[in-house]
């Protein structure tokens, strides 16, 4: 099914918002205005944008240390993000947590915390609550490839399959857990199959293709809403910046430098921009300016106190 131009523009706006907001944060990390550890999402925006496009406002998302994108794609306040990263009272957690601790339950961001995969069982518990109350709400857990090395993710998959919970598991495989490449952590490149033993079906998609991510997420969300249980989606992508901080992470070896050069041309946002240009959309620059104005306004609001 072909997505409409309007739909693509909406995704483009979400991804641009995430990209530009994070570049602003990266600048503040470099200047020292932001002191808390920031794990940037740049390069992975299509995943948050694609998955959240498949959700209703009452559906909930749960994340980890690299969750600015999830928070924004689900509709979390931009000023709340900036305020939190700056540890101000205007932050979404009142400045108590910083970049790694975001929540906006009013739009379904129930929480993001940095213990690896810490929120995966919590998302399953929320799904349990929706099912128990007879609601058709869905919970989505976002986590990285390193998370599948945590035992409680496997426990959660078994429980979610056993109780047929409305849960969608989004594994963003950016190939690195902190500084370790997947091949230094696993014997085989097969994360999408991690749920097989637990009767959780899995699928692998191009995480830099927002339409492919959306398509997979929509099927998984429908399956969850229909009472058929959890699905695991492995989204292949690449983290442009370091594990933490603003640098391009060229310090973890020559191989990584080569990989970044391979992945930069696969930029999910540029791909979408090209697609829209091909379709004759001519006002992207104007839209970009409007987003930047929004970012400027949110930064002012965040710093108002």
């Amino acid at each position: 099914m072909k997505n409409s131009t309007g739909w693509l523009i909406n995704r483009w706006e979400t991804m641009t918002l995430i990209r530009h907001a994070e570049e602003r944060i990266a600048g503040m990390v470099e200047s020292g205005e932001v002191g808390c550890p920031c794990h940037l999402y740049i390069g992975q925006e299509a995943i948050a944008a694609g998955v959240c496009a498949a959700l209703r406002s009452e559906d909930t998302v749960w994340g980890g240390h690299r969750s600015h994108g999830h928070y924004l794609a689900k509709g979390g306040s931009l000023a709340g993000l900036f305020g939190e990263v700056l540890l101000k009272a205007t932050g979404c957690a009142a400045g108590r947590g910083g970049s790694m601790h975001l929540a906006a339950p009013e739009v379904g961001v129930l929480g993001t915390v940095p213990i690896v995969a810490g929120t995966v069982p919590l998302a399953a518990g929320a799904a349990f609550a929706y099912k128990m109350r007879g609601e058709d709400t869905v919970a989505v857990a976002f986590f990285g490839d390193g998370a599948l090395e945590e035992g409680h993710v496997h426990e959660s998959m078994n429980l979610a399959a056993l109780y047929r919970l409305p849960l969608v598991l989004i594994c963003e495989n950016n190939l690195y857990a902190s500084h370790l490449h997947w091949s230094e952590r696993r014997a085989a490149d097969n994360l999408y199959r991690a749920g097989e033993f637990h009767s959780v079906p899995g699928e692998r998609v191009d995480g830099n293709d927002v339409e492919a991510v959306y398509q997979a997420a929509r099927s998984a969300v429908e399956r969850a809403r229909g009472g058929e249980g959890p699905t695991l989606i492995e989204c292949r992508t690449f983290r442009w910046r370091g594990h933490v901080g603003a640098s391009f992470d060229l310090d973890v070896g020559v191989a990584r430098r080569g990989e970044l050069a391979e992945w930069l041309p696969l930029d999910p946002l540029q791909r979408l921009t090209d697609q829209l240009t091909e379709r004759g959309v001519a006002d992207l620059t104007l839209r970009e300016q409007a987003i930047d104005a929004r970012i400027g306004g949110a930064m002012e609001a965040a710093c108002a106190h």
Partner: protein
Amino acid sequence: MRTLTYAQAIREAHAQLLALDPRVFVIGQGLWSPWYAGSSLEGLDSEFGCARMVDSPVSENAVTGMAVGAALAGLRPIVFHPRMDFMLLAMDPIVNQAANWSYLFSSKGGVPLVIRAVINRGGEQGAQHSQALHAMFMHVPGLKVVMPATPYDAKGLLMAAIKDSGPVLYIDDRWLYGESGEVPEEPFTVVIGEAIVRRRGSDVTLIGVSWMAAECVRAAALLEHEGIDAEVIDLRTLKPWDKELVAASVSRTGRAVVADGGWRTAGASADIAVEVTERCFHDLKAPVVRVTLPDAPAPANRSEELVYYPGAEQISSAARALLERIAKRAAA
């Protein structure tokens, strides 16, 4: 008033909570089997259905995490750990998630979760089936820890825990399951954080919680035969514990014995003893003494168990030694 056992009181609290509040559910191991919970959950699965009495796989970490998530999504879960030892596998959801979450996102609401853990020791069960780990959790900001010693408190504290907006660790003790006492039939709560004086006395204050509070009551009876008038305080809540009530008592008696069923080093007794010393230093007639487990894993052999677990004998000896020490000093 009607009499119930401690286990029956726990069961009644569950039954009333399940009946009164559709948000309440119980999840954990052994809910459908008397092997795990004794009679404390008996028949609740048939009364309220297996969908609200969820006997789960042995996945302590994820099951506890699910309970945290369900609480954040608006339910009032009671997650059940029939042996506290196994709950160590759930440290992340309890400490990192539930406890910290209640601080980090307090502006977005609390984590209304009850974590029920059972101390189930003795009976030659050995080191990994015998641990009383309350002090580990008492250490964590954001967690409340309640430890009832009587059937009345067993019911009232569970009902208070479920009403609390933050995570509450409710620790009960299998050794108390057969104790009888008066318990009101209607729902009621015991205030979290309030200790109670079990016996008035003027010579020495005995401070305990859970099983050791019951042993303090027995120790006071032994001391009474010797003309020693002991005051007994049952803390009931270990975090936050009632420092005012304890300090007022010790300031009056001038002597304190702290009895705890956990280990000595960095145990609950250490915190209580130092707090009493700080608050009552000028009223103390002798150093605060402690009766605890030795700093050693639990033995399995019955004869070693008898030595390992202190009780009324050791508490009364400690109190007696305190008074003798003072008498000697007065004579010298």
